[in-house]
């Protein structure tokens, strides 16, 4: 396989921008990625737009703002894994030999509060009151607490860490540290998940310019290698997540995070211990807890210990969500994975300032969402 590299990265802050259209937010991130790469929009041969809640042909509507074009521009959707799906398409196109320079843009503009349930759930699930994504996450948390003794305090510590990390991220929405007491006394959203332990739907965009190794050499600059970009769908009953109506009590399939990261690790020729920094799906704080186990950072049931020991803090053995994670950045669904990728690029270029993981050479980005859609991207210097 030819190698594909990231030559430029750009991001529009994640937050709520009621006076800005999605076109404006998306074009900002795309333009920044092009400038960072030092290439012109007219040099791009194909573009992919990851979004979930925006209208048809959003990618073309946004990118036409950079100048008239005839290149193929496709919108890509795979729930929370949309960004990974879009990046993967660009990599495949470059690997096919048809093109050698592509733009991948993730963008979203979402209303406040619970997402529109009809995007994900069937009418009967909405009528019966089973149409809130956090309900599904919470049931995973309750079961983990029951089986392994994971505590409210351990879950709160993840939110504490991520909020604290976000203070140094100018692109995060909240950027405010909260004490453990403030987190534990914030309103219960879905037992046991509290308001300060859950991400908000919001607006944002992130983009990367990717190139073949040969094209990148001609462009010049410091490039980041894409060691793997895997996207999979959860195996039968391997993941209880919205909008599931049931779960097998007898099937014993490997979960999507483990399955996808195993595939990515194999393609990259490395293991979890070789990764210096992680950005993972913390749509709620418990989600990050179970991902520690599923990525192999600790054995099953021991994620609580890992957070107690501070191993996932910046400076720890496995730094996770240096950016502040989705808990503090918010989750503009189509943009979230590319936002993670932009953070890893910044880490591997040693441009992350106060939140820099010293000497980071390998980073992993992970997303997982509705229907068991999962993506893992591994980047290397």
């Amino acid at each position, binding site marked *: 396989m030819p190698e594909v590299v990231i030559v430029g990265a750009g991001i529009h802050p994640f937050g709520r921008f009621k006076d800005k259209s999605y076109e404006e937010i998306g074009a900002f991130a795309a333009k920044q990625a092009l400038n960072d790469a030092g290439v012109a929009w007219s040099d791009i041969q194909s573009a992919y737009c990851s979004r979930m809640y925006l209208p048809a042909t959003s990618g073309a509507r946004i990118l036409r703002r950079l100048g008239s074009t005839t290149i193929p521009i496709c919108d890509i959707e795979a729930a929370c894994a949309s960004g990974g799906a879009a990046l993967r398409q660009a990599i495949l196109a470059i690997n096919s030999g048809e093109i050698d320079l592509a733009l991948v843009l993730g963008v979203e503009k979402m209303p406040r*509060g*619970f*997402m*529109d*349930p*009809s995007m994900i759930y*069937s*009418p*009967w699930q*909405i*009528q*019966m*009151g*089973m*149409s*809130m994504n*956090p*309900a599904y996450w*919470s*049931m*995973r948390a*309750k*079961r983990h607490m*029951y089986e392994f003794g994971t505590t409210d305090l351990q879950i709160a510590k993840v939110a504490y860490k991520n909020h604290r990390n976000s203070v140094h991220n100018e692109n995060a929405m909240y950027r405010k540290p909260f004490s453990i007491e403030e987190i534990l006394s914030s309103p*219960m*959203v*879905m*037992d*046991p998940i509290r308001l300060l332990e859950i991400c908000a739907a919001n607006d944002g965009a992130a983009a990367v310019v990717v190139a073949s190794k040969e094209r990148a050499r001609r462009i010049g600059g410091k490039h980041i290698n894409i060691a793997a970009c895997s996207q999979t769908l959860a195996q*039968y*009953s391997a993941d*209880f997540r919205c909008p*599931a*109506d*049931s*779960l*097998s*009590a*007898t*099937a014993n399939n490997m979960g999507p995070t483990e399955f996808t990261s195993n595939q990515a690790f194999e393609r990259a020729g490395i293991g979890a211990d070789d990764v210096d920094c992680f950005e993972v799906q913390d749509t709620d704080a418990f989600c990050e807890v179970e991902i520690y186990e599923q990525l192999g950072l600790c054995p099953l049931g021991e994620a609580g210990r890992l957070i107690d020991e501070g191993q996932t803090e910046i400076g720890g053995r496995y730094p996770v969500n240096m950016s502040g994670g989705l808990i503090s950045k918010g989750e503009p669904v189509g943009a979230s994975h590319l936002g993670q990728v932009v953070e890893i690029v910044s880490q591997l270029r040693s441009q992350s300032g106060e939140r820099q993981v010293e000497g980071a050479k390998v980073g992993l980005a992970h997303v997982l969402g509705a229907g068991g859609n999962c993506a893992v991207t591994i980047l290397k210097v």
Partner: protein
Amino acid sequence: MDMVENNPAEFQRVPVRDGLLAGDLRRLDGVRLAGTRCHSCGEVSLGQNQVCLNCGGDQVSHVSLSDRGMLWSYTIVRNRPPGDYKGPDPFKPFGIGLVELPDGIRVMSPLDVEISDVQIGMPLQFRAFVQHVDAEHHEVIAFKFTGVA
């Protein structure tokens, strides 16, 4: 006992989702969740399906699932669900959970149990009930699990 249950002739009844319920909807105490058992891999899936949702095999039987189960996990819904929720108005917090049935499947269901009493492992009983009357004047039959006395 729902008042309308004694007047089955007045309304035609429909399940909240096609293929989800087994039994005569005019007699709610005989209604069960419908399931599909695969002759190839043995998995039981929810509802009447034409192929096995695990292996894709088409040698399947439609079965009625057990009306007794045990709570595998749960959460409490503290805010009115978005969209066309048909529960009580004004809203009353309620539990939802995964109920493990002896058939080898855990089913997502609203819980008709006092929220402070909900706990993992508790035994539960299936109940079909009239959830609402739809625009075509059909009584829509949904389900929940209640505590066992």
